[in-house]
């Protein structure tokens, strides 16, 4: 049963899968990790991104990754608008912890139901030249439908990392949940900073969605599978840390892939919660948490 090529393939498949998970989790690393907003609707936005890629791909033959990049600015504005509503309705009056959670639950269900009403529950997929191809190096397979999402996700992570650590806005986003009053004393408006950051987080969902539908067919409620994974990755990575998030995503991908290969695919959904439970028990600050 066990063999070197099986192991090597499992590890490579896990790294590629984990790379994609980083694209799923990066928006939450900003919104949940930095802003402390429990946006459980994030994967639902990813599904919207996947459907937009599906529509423009099936009608006009656009490349899904290109669609993701083009849709990102629109997602940014939608995200900023949603934060405005969230702020005015809950955060301003200090009711964000429970009512805010219910709000995002509601947003998630609305997105799912709207997608089901328009497109039904059938699986949708995209066409692109690279999707059926596989590169083979030695005895290890690199399917392009996994390799392309990995590469796009790595580039997205690098861009967000650079933005967060080298721009004034990025540093303000990191600071806003730590002390909003002190941030005001730096001349920054905390509400505007959070609105911008939330928009940025949702913008990444457009790209993650296009990657999701490259990897495999998508139906409206498939986003739920990613809620646990995305939160587990952000917690394991050390909440706000982008670097930590990427490494945590790779770890989760590898562990899931190993479990699927050697214990059976039905076990892999349990991995995220196992990782989450172990992290909270052994290292609550995560791998790269700042304490």
């Amino acid at each position, binding site marked *: 049963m066990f063999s070197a090529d099986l192991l090597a393939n499992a590890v490579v498949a896990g790294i590629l899968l984990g790379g994609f998970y980083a694209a799923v989790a990066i928006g939450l690393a900003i919104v949940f990790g930095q802003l402390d907003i429990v946006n459980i609707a994030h994967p639902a936005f990813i599904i919207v991104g996947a459907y937009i890629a599906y529509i423009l791909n099936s009608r006009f033959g656009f490349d899904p990754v290109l669609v993701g990049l083009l849709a990102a600015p629109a997602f940014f504005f939608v995200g900023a608008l949603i934060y405005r509503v969230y702020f005015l309705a809950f955060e301003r009056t200090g009711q964000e912890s429970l009512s805010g959670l219910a709000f995002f639950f509601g947003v998630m269900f609305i997105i799912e139901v709207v997608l089901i009403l328009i497109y039904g529950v059938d699986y949708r997929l995209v066409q692109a030249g690279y999707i059926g191809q596989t590169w083979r190096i030695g005895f290890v397979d690199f399917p392009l439908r996994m390799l392309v999402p990995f590469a796009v996700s790595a580039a997205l992570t690098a861009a967000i990392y650079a933005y967060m650590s080298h721009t*004034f806005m990025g540093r303000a986003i*990191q600071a806003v949940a730590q002390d909003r009053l*002190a941030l*005001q004393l730096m001349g920054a*408006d905390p509400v505007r900073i959070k609105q911008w950051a939330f928009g940025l987080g949702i913008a990444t969902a457009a790209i993650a969605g296009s990657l999701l539908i490259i990897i495999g067919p998508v139906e409206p409620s498939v986003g739920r599978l990613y809620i646990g994974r995305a939160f587990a990755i952000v917690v394991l990575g050390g909440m706000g840390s982008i670097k930590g998030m990427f490494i945590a995503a790779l770890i989760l991908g590898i562990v899931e892939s190993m479990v699927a290969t050697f214990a059976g695919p039905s076990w892999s959904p349990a991995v995220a919660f196992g990782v989450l439970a172990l992290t909270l028990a052994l290292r609550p600050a995560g791998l790269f948490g700042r304490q």
Partner: protein
Amino acid sequence: MALSLAIRDVDAGYGAVRALHGVSLGIRDGETVALLGTNGNGKSTLMKCIMGMVRPTRGSVTLEIDGARHDLVRLSTEEIVNLGVAMVPEGRRLFPKLTVEENLLLGAFRPLARADIGKNLAFCFEVFPVLVERRRQLAGSLSGGQQQMLAIGRALMSAPRLLLVDEPSVGLAPILVSHTITKIKELKERYGLTVLMAEQNFHQAIRIADRGYIIVHGEIVFEGDVAALEQNELVKNYYLGSAA
């Protein structure tokens, strides 16, 4: 290049509690003014009124800068900071999970300060050499004295014209208090700042102040230059011990 701050007849408070009663205070260009008083007398509230963090219920706060008058009561904290007013808040309020350098760079958030960021960072590191060694360390892991240096440095990064310092001595050992006050004086002289410092430590504050105000129960009870302050009966009672 003139700057002045005028506070006239300000009442302010929190809910039903009035913390300031008819407070008037003026600061002229290049002065160091000490706002003296023990805990709970309204020093911090007055500082917050200047920064737009507490809104006066009566009176005016006017900043005149290079010939333009600004009614601070109508401006947000961010807008006041953008005029060139910086505050080192009580309790320092650093970003504990950001590094020393990240804290300093955030200080230069306001657009006007970004142009001079390299120069101001070098200046901060020159005045506070301890921050250079610890630039990659998280602010929350610094000692109290180092945190105070960082808080002052961060305020300086915004390239302020008027610097407000709220209780720089709180929580510091006496030697560090003296060191901090000396640094504020050094900065003021080298940077051409105008300074308003709220402080309970009378002796330290008047070392660097040109003038001082004494605030008791939310009212200014005495105003004068350093010599007059030292001779004042109230000061003797409050700070120097009248029996001695």
